[in-house]
């Protein structure tokens, strides 16, 4: 791979011109001072030839700036590490076969929107019969037994239920992320499970539009699924993970830091 291709830079209309669009509000009245402050800030961010193309006073001592510039940084493509859930995505049929052949019992899954979160559409998309984007939800899988506890479920209730039905996996949906609400909530869940010494017993999965696998790992979950997840992805991950834990452990489906090219 030649050096040129290795270093990645933004593109406007000429390779590596570094062109970037940016916008933000500053706590200053619109005017030359704010414009210059915006430019200085952009320069600190590594922008050159900064052009403040619009500035709008928002009142209350604030103004909004739109600017363009050329960023001087670049990314070395060989250094890009993607943390993603590593597994083979199987189809509805393949998952059910996998369970029958490799796990040999029904897989039990409990899901909930926890804390004060009432956004059920995402979790329903994964769990309910109807599914999402043309794919059946987990409830429809003959080899999966599902419990969808719905919205605003306290962590204690979720754990209690998971113990009661002897769940393999706990699925948590978190959509509201303002002021880090989800992090607090998810951390609490992990801590409570660990406190009860049950961490190894459950596969912990979290999903939501602002969730990344990376964040999930940081918080102590096994996997995280973001925007646009489809049910078979989740099913595939769970069954492979169970198989890995219980079974012939003939492969690692866990997170892998890979430097793809």
């Amino acid at each position, binding site marked *: 791979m030649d050096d040129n291709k290795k270093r990645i830079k933004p593109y406007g209309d000429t390779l590596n011109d570094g062109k970037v669009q940016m916008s933000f509000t500053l706590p200053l009245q619109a005017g030359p001072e704010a414009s210059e402050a915006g430019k200085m800030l952009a320069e600190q961010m590594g922008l050159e030839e900064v052009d403040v193309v619009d500035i709008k006073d*928002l*009142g*209350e001592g604030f103004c909004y700036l739109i600017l363009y510039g050329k960023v001087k940084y670049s990314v070395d493509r060989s250094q890009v590490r993607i943390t993603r859930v590593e597994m083979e995505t199987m189809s509805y049929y393949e998952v059910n076969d996998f369970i029958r052949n490799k796990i040999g019992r029904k897989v039990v899954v409990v899901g909930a929107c926890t804390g*004060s979160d009432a956004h059920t559409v995402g979790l329903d998309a994964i769990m309910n019969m109807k599914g999402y984007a043309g794919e059946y939800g987990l409830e429809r899988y003959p080899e999966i037994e599902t419990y969808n506890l719905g919205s605003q479920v306290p962590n204690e209730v979720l754990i209690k239920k998971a113990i009661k039905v002897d769940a393999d996996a706990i699925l948590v949906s978190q959509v509201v992320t*303002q002021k880090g609400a989800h992090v607090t909530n998810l951390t609490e869940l992990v801590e409570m499970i660990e406190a009860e010494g049950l961490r190894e017993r459950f596969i912990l999965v979290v999903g939501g539009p602002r969730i990344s696998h990376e964040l999930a790992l940081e918080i102590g979950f096994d996997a995280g699924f973001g*925007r646009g997840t489809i049910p078979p992805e989740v099913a595939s991950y769970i069954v492979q993970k169970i198989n890995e834990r219980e079974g012939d452990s003939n492969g690692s489906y866990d997170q892998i830091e890979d430097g793809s090219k």
Partner: protein
Amino acid sequence: MQEKLKIDKQLEKRCRNAARSIADDIQSRIEGYTTTAVERTVIRTLGVDGVSNEEIPLPNVVVEDVKRAGKLDKGAAYWFGNAMLETEKSPQEIAEAIDRGELSLTSLPERNFKEIKQLIDSRVAETVNKIEGSREARKDLQERFNLGPKPWLYVIVATGNIYEDLRQARAAAREGADIVAVIRSTAQSLLDYVPYGATTEGFGGTYATQENFRIMREGLDEVGEEIGRYIQLVNYCSGLAMPEIAIMGAVERLDMMLNDAMYGILFRDINMKRTFIDQYFSRMINSYAGIIINTGEDNYLTTADAKEEAHTVVASQFINRELAIRSGLKPEQIGLGHAFEIDPDVEDGFLLEVAQAQMVRQLFPDCPLKYMPPTKHMTGDIFKGHLQDGLFNLASVMTGQEIQLLGMLTEAIHTPFLHDRALSIENARYIFNNARHLGDEIVFKQDGIIQKRADKVLSETAIMLEEVAEKGLMGAIEEGMFAGISRTISGGKGVEGVIKKGEDYYNPFLDQLKEGLNI
């Protein structure tokens, strides 16, 4: 103005009749009940406020005291009035004494009811006067400052911090917003009480408290004075403490309240009966206070498909309207909700949206319509999102909507930043101004897509309403006929707060409201 759509009068009539019978049925099922929330509201009208050492609001302490004794069927006011006569203490002192465990309302000797009634009625009348005062003040200010042209620009603030909210609200008002809604913190609707004082923390929104209402009102009046436009303030009259919020809003001069007959049931799993009772009462308060309610039909479309389930929205509007009228709300106070939520990939989706908006406009010509922006189909593509909001604004001005909740280009990402709101306002102002009289200019073709769509939705609405009338609204909800969500009659939160009224049930506030509203 020429009617842009032909509405089948026969179908319309069928809808109205069914809705009427649905509403009458609900009324007959709730008449014999009160709730803990209703009773707390009455206690508030007597002047009880503040919280205990454990942060429990004193109205809860008072009502809990009576409830524990199993004597709420007489109405909290009766016991409280009795205690006032017996102890000769102020309402606040009595509440504090109960909190300290020094007093239990139901263990005092019982005085003569007439005497109690006289005392309490006059106390309540003071509060009723206060509400009237707010209503008058609103009228005066609106005359002095004017209201902006319709569609009114409605924006939300949701920082969690009331002072930050105010700052953002003031900025928005100067940019052209007509209405500011403070979005509540995520879990508040499930709180069976109202938090107290100014608050600076919340998730996805700011707590509704009386002090927060006051702070916003004062701030918006100030900016209104500055810009010569009256800025309307909105909050949520919903959840387990719905009627308490109503009285707080009435006193602090809120101008609109989100207040829907079914929202709590469907979206917060609050018990049906509890909801309908609290609803009825809180709507009377809103009515008396001259507040415009905003119903929440838009929410259906967050879980159901906007193209397939459009008739459920219209059916619910008919029902919400009938129920509201039974609480004394005048049509001009009934802000029926609907939304621009069709998948942006649908060919001619804009035509379908226009059909719906225009039909609703003609079906409810005397109600201000609350039009909600695209939310479900917004994505991280803020540029496309801004356009979706633009078409939404255009549909609105084309069809004469009145309360326009502005869409945000960052809808799929975060609660609005200061500049997101500014861009939204700019969007609406641009579109409204540029197409100000487009609605007056065009007529829809007789057998076109728009007319046919309206016909179809209306006929589905009539069929649905008749089915709901047959089953009763509660039965229909059990069957998941709204938003695809099913709830049982006896299930849901707050069911324990529903109390059968006794023969001698006394609710001075209810009585005075009924009198004042002539219902």
